[in-house]
């Protein structure tokens, strides 16, 4: 692995050299930098599979949205609402906060509707998503191994519950590189909302783990510097910053001549990149160039840090060639107040998801952008009443999620759960299957994509094998 990354370094530096880093580039540092479409190569030279997805936008609904209210209507559960949950279903199972409690069925708390020509059944709470039902594939048979937030996020992002593995965005930018010259290849946005007291999200979730640090996700923040340490110090103008960066690079180059240390060329290139980011990132975050109609379609106020704003930023990042964009929206952890809070969360994401799909279609980017919408686990068909007004506990035997774009069959529903919505029973999917499918659309053969770590050929999809969900792909 070390060898590959090092050789990559050199290769990139050579590529940059050809672009004239040593010539005019330094002198031009002071000029407004323009985004360049000079791709950064990944370690996979020739992709073994057809490339259906050039980029990924992954919408992570942190906390675990209830599939039983949003995506998976269960008549039997409605019929049995308030009755004891059959012990045969739950015996010996992993439960979180309901461990040792009496278990009662809780029917769906909101109505469902059939949407689109496909007649996809989804919640009344998701009318906008319903309007693009024929563009998305709803998976009702997802499962996961973890049942607490932190390990479940880790599993969803890295395919392992043990810290230290790279998250998927890092794997993908490591493998494919990025087409964004002056932005990071893996970008994370966490929406800020009023919310209650949402579950914490660790920076580990976008860590590059054992991969080189430059593949780590970079969080773009809605307040303060969008990228940490991006702004010049007070009292230092853009021009002065450029003067210093130029001087640093010139002195470094003199040092390079006397020591022949190849690392110096990389250092010079990184200063140039950092300086470019100081312009390109604020430009990217500035939504003032977007027309009012677009903004109203997403339903955001520019700069509000909302999920809707982040969806619009995701589209802008996608346009700039960013490879992997991950949006976090928190506060789906409805142990209580399910009836009160779920509609609020649904409203925060519903319109923006549909707008993003429509926008990408309009721009001709839907065909090669893979969209994924998922929590880290589902919720129990059993009610939880020990934390206040009624809610549902964490659940890992079944959950729903959706995918769209990039060769995913729209208007389809894949897999299903038992009649109480407890276990996925039809076309059961694992997180590793999801990862394998996503990599497949990116042109990567998941079981051949590995990095040596602690003596193993470590893979995103783990050691136990994974299945590409060909049935949902066109």
């Amino acid at each position, binding site marked *: 692995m070390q060898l590959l990354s090092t050789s990559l370094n050199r290769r990139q530096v050579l590529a940059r050299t050809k672009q004239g880093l040593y010539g005019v580039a330094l002198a031009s540092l002071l000029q407004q930098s323009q985004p360049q479409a000079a791709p950064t190569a990944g370690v996979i030279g020739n992709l073994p599979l057809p490339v259906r997805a050039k980029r990924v936008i992954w919408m992570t609904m942190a906390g675990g949205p209830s599939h039983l209210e949003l995506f998976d209507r269960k008549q039997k559960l409605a019929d049995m609402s308030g009755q004891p949950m059959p012990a045969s279903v739950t015996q010996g199972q992993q439960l979180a906060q309901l461990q040792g409690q009496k278990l009662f069925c809780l029917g769906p708390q909101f109505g469902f509707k059939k949407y689109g020509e496909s007649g996809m059944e989804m919640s009344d709470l998701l009318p906008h998503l319903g309007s693009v039902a024929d563009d998305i594939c709803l998976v009702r048979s997802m499962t996961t191994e973890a049942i607490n937030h932190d390990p479940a996020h880790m599993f969803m992002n890295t395919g392992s519950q043990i*810290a*230290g593995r790279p998250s998927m965005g890092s794997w993908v930018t490591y493998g494919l590189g990025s087409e964004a010259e002056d932005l990071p290849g893996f970008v994370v946005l966490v929406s800020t909302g009023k919310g209650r007291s949402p579950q914490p999200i660790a920076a580990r979730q976008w860590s590059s783990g054992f991969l080189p640090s430059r593949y780590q996700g970079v969080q773009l923040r809605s307040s303060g510097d969008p990228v940490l*340490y991006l702004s010049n110090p007070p009292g230092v103008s853009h021009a002065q910053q450029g003067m210093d960066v130029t001087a640093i690079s010139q002195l*470094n180059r003199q040092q390079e001549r006397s020591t*022949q240390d190849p690392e110096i060329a990389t250092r010079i290139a990184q200063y140039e990149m950092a300086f470019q980011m100081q312009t390109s990132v604020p430009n990217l975050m500035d939504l003032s160039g977007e027309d009012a109609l677009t903004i109203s379609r997403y339903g955001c106020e520019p700069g509000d840090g909302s999920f809707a704003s982040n969806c619009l930023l995701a589209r802008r990042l996608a346009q700039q060639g960013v490879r992997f964009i991950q949006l976090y929206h928190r506060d789906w952890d409805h142990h209580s107040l399910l009836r009160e809070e779920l509609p609020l969360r649904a409203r925060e994401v519903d319109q923006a998801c549909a707008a993003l799909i429509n926008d990408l279609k309009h721009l001709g980017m839907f065909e090669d952008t893979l969209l994924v919408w998922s929590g880290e686990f589902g919720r129990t068909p059993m009610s939880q009443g020990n934390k206040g007004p009624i809610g549902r506990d*964490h659940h890992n035997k079944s959950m729903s999620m959706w995918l769209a774009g990039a060769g995913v069959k729209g208007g389809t529903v894949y897999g299903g759960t038992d009649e109480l919505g407890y276990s996925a029973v039809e076309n059961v999917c694992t997180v590793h299957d999801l990862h394998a499918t996503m990599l497949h659309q990116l042109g990567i053969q998941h079981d051949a994509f590995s990095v040596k770590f602690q*003596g193993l050929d470590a893979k995103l999809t783990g050691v136990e094998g994974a299945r590409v969900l060909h049935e949902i792909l066109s």
Partner: protein
Amino acid sequence: MISSAASFRISLLCVVAALPVVNQTAAEEQVQFNRDIRPILSDNCFFCHGPDANHRQADLRLDLREEAIAANAFVPGKPGEGTLLERIMSDDPEQIMPPPDSHKKLTPAQKKTLQQWIAQGAEYQQHWSFEPPVKAEIPAGENGIDFLVQQRLQELGLKPSPEADRRTLVRRLYNDLIGLPPTPEQVNAFINDGSEDAYEKLVDSLLANPHYGERMGQWWLDLVRFADTIGYHSDNPRNVWPYRDYVIESFNENKPFDQFTIEQIAGDLLPEANQETRVGSGFNRLLLSTEEGGAQPKDYEARMLTDRVRAVGTVWLGMTTGCCQCHDHKFDPFTMRDFYSLGAFFADIQEPILGKREAGMLVITAEQEAELARRDAELKAAQKLANEAGAVLDKAQAEWEASLPSEGLSLPELAEDSKASKNEKDLAKAALDALSKPADQRDQKLKSAIQEYYRAVVNREHQETFAALKKAEQEKTGYENSLPHCIVSISTNNKRTVRILPRGNWMDESGEVMQPALPHFLPQPEFGERELTRLDLANWLVSRDNPLTARAYMNRLWKQFFGTGLSKVLDDLGAQGETPPNAPLLDWLACELMDSGWDVKHMVRLIVTSKTYQQTSVATPALLAADPYNREHARQSAFRMDAELVRDYALSVSGLLVLNIGGPSVKPYQPGGYWENLNFPRREYDADKGESQYRRGLYTWWQRTFLHPSLMAFDAPSREECCAERNRSNIPQQALVLLNDPTYVEAARKFAERILTEGPKSTEERLRWAWQQALQRDPDAEELKVIEPLLAQHLQVYREDPQAAESLLKTGLAPRNTELDPVELAAWSHVARVLLNLHETITRS
């Protein structure tokens, strides 16, 4: 540049093909199993034909010679027979090995090597690191390192590089031994010291420097995953920093490494256990824990067990063990039984599986202990007086109670016209309720209600005695709570039951119960029937029986002084790791460490006084082509400093660095909102003021889920898992940190103050002075040509906009020298900033 880069690339290709150029000639002569064959078999074949019985295909194992021969994989000396070569040479996708779906492919060179090996008799060797290290004979008076490096270089036809210049040597020593830059005076003193043992004297003084322990401890803290917070979910704080200071002190006092090991694994079980060894045993508590609601105890019990086994595997054995949580190791003889029986050693550690960590053991100095004893004595004395007063009052209260009417009792405070306070009325009401019950039916609560009323309202004698008691209590507990605490190992007889967890599933309780046992494949003493303890494990780890610990430690120590381990895979000395190109050298170092009584300073001295260490790091193009990664040490290496040292260097040059050793972790400036995604509870980051703002990097508050971003940018690990090897990346965030992080901006402006106040007066002399401070050398003419116009331009900008100068000079908490012209100071701050950003500044060469 282009041509050397091109040749670089060619040699890289050779390395990628797993045949280091420097090994090629050797490979054609006599094939060696460990060097040439095992890596091929391990990487391509053992997954299905190796130690893991459950995953073995076709009943064939290639890791044991007898079994491979019995299965007709090969016939020694006859490459034309046997199935191994036939299958690997096949073109038929049904026949070829490794099979296509494994995505493994042997190169023609690897196939040829296997063929040669069988032709030469297919001899096996036990995996190198499981054999006891062998100490090579070194001619008297020679440094073993130099002798063995030279021997290897001669074999390869390489020549060592000349000694580095004296400035480089002194800077290198300062960086490697104490992690701080020398002052120009210190550099010059060494350069001008003509005595024969000038270098040795410098080494000795640095080994005796109290910052040596900080430098040595830094990567140990990565290795053991030392951090200030619990890691999972809420990632709340825990009391653990005294363990960090224990590590620093241990290196400073040159505690033998075997003792250091034993204290960490079992410092609480030693017959002579004391505060220091118990703090050392805090190692066992450094793992991740959770406070998440809904977490299951059995789940986290399993996580903690596996975390500990992985830790011991990584830290001392230098082995990967994590896979054995679910199945036998695919490549090494480590089994699931080994894994869980190693975990059983730690079943006695008393700890909450879920929830908040306990406050931990008091960690105090003799003075603090005396003070605590004094306050305790005062408390006892106050208690005694209060008891006596209480007895008197009890007697009076009994008489009072007896005097009360048995029917129709009322208390004066409850009368309508009573002027009693609300508190008195409440007390009276509670007392009345209690008194209305027959005396023999009053529980403790009711009795207390009466007593409280009596003493507060009826009879107010002795109140000052009770007040004194309360004060004494507060003074003792308040003081006690303000003293350092550390979570440590406490052994309980009520041990957790450890079972093999089938496929690692904690809900499956069908697995066999495991007792503590050492890995079955490594040499060990006869213990008889008695149950083993952590102390047995600790003693074995540093016994001569165990071939791994000394190698693992020396391999990592080597990295500190050369940038790469002798085996470059620092966390795996097993089959999937790398046999060191110079295996005799690693063995010699391991033996020397043990023979010296695990004397770490002795080993450090041996390394830094070797000629190998003192070579220049500047490579000739030919050497760069022959050995691009400097695995053979025909030169030194240049590499970027670790995150903490980057900070220390800038603060040191600026004069801001506060060199106190130890104490609670500190909080340097951090961008606002960086912790916004933390919860339970939400937290504000309050950057430290005063001295704590300017401490060395290793004292930074280590928040596992949100490590300080400027440390993270320079590859400091989150320390959630044991980390034997940090990445060493070169990314744009590093430039943003050095340019814009207020820590570095403040350092630049304070450095500029030094230039203007401590330096000479003319611009050119000042520049020379600044270069000396930052790099301990003079600028050359070319450099002056860059920096002089830069200074002039910034001067002009700030002359036109003095407000901007004021803004810049407000960065950071350190007061500004108001006697200096702000325009001049701001412009010089840019010069200082450029110097602190240079590649040379953050590179150890």
